């Protein structure tokens, strides 16, 4: 694909070397991958401006680029073809047609100029490999235990440890497992974003869990004991007499594990939903009537 280096740097065809350098510096400060973590687009653009700067700030390379323009991929053939066409050999004379290749931007750079030169303070330009991003879907129960999982990223198997307590939409970085670096540059990183599905019983907020428990009217009024589900098993609870509908209790340490803090847990908040009895017998209805009268 042909890329107009002048356009990439936002300068005119007659820009001076100083103007090119200044435009490059300005864009580099804006697009540098270290200043734009997790932004693939700026990384790609940064590579483009680097290559544009490499070519346009070197008078020889710039001349070559200006000469061949979009026919860059076949620069040498173009040259030969030009010579051929200058000396046509009768009716059978061959003509060349040029098509824009779909090669990558770096191919251009390497094919035309044979590798990267130096910049700035004479340090060879090393390109850090591309960062990869991936999504991993877990259910709530998976996310509450530290476990290992094997992923295949670009054909390479990577075994990762997922710490208990990972958040929905949280991204972790696996250093050095992105694309390969160029010219001895470091490999990119792999960023994995976790998508944690909701759970039918528990809702999560940070390290705390929330659930709703049905309570029959009699236990709510008179008090008693019930068994409720938590993430790690059932728990027996005492219910106070005269417990109101919608009242909440907190079970300390029965929530979600705290990320990377072994042995620490959030809390579980239980909201009671008092269920009014239905299909009453005549006797029950009479008893409720009696109760009602006793209130007056």
């Amino acid at each position, binding site marked *: 694909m042909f890329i107009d280096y002048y356009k990439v740097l936002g300068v005119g065809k007659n820009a001076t070397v100083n103007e090119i350098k200044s435009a490059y510096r300005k864009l580099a400060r804006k697009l*540098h991958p270290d200043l734009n973590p997790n932004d693939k687009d700026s990384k790609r653009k940064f590579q483009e401006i680097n290559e544009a700067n490499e070519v346009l700030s070197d008078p020889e390379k710039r001349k070559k680029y200006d000469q061949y323009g979009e026919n860059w991929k076949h620069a040498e053939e173009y040259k030969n073809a030009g010579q051929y066409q200058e000396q046509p050999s009768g009716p059978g004379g061959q003509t060349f047609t040029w098509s824009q290749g779909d090669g990558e931007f770096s191919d251009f750079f390497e094919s035309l100029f044979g590798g990267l030169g130096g910049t700035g303070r004479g*340090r060879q330009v090393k390109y850090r490999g591309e960062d990869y991003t991936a999504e991993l879907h877990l259910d709530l129960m998976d996310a509450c235990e530290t476990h290992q999982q094997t992923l295949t990223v670009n054909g390479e198997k990577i075994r990762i440890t997922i710490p208990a307590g990972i958040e929905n939409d*949280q991204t972790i970085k696996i250093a050095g497992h992105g694309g390969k670096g160029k010219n001895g540059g470091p490999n990119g990183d792999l960023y994995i974003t976790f998508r944690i599905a909701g759970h039918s019983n528990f*809702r999560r*907020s*940070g390290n705390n869990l929330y659930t709703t428990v049905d309570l029959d009217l009699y236990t709510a009024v008179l008090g008693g004991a019930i068994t409720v589900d938590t993430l790690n098993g059932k728990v027996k609870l005492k219910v106070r007499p005269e417990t109101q509908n919608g009242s909440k209790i907190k079970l300390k340490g029965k929530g979600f594990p705290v990320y990377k803090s072994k042995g620490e847990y959030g809390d579980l908040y239980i909201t009671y939903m008092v269920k009014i009895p239905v299909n009453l017998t005549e006797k029950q209805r009479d008893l409720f009537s009696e109760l009602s009268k006793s209130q007056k």
Partner: protein
Amino acid sequence: MNNENMISVIEFCECHHIEMSFIDSLQDTGLIVIETVEETPYIQESQLYDLEKIVRLYYDLDINPEGIDAVINLLKRMDDMQHEITRLKNRLRLYEELES
């Protein structure tokens, strides 16, 4: 002190084609900590990722060590804010689920 999990500063400089004086200036600014074992300067392996980032910012963008210090602090704040946004989004989701 042994030099396990440590990286020789000299080797680091050779590998990245940088001057040793640059690493000294980073230490002076407090950006890295150099430890000396048997007269050889080392950095902890855990500092490597940050040090490579510092080198890139310095050579790619011409930012001086003081500027790098400011940039790194701002990036850290950005990262903390990103985490806070994620946490708040999840909290909002909880209320949205309760409403629906």
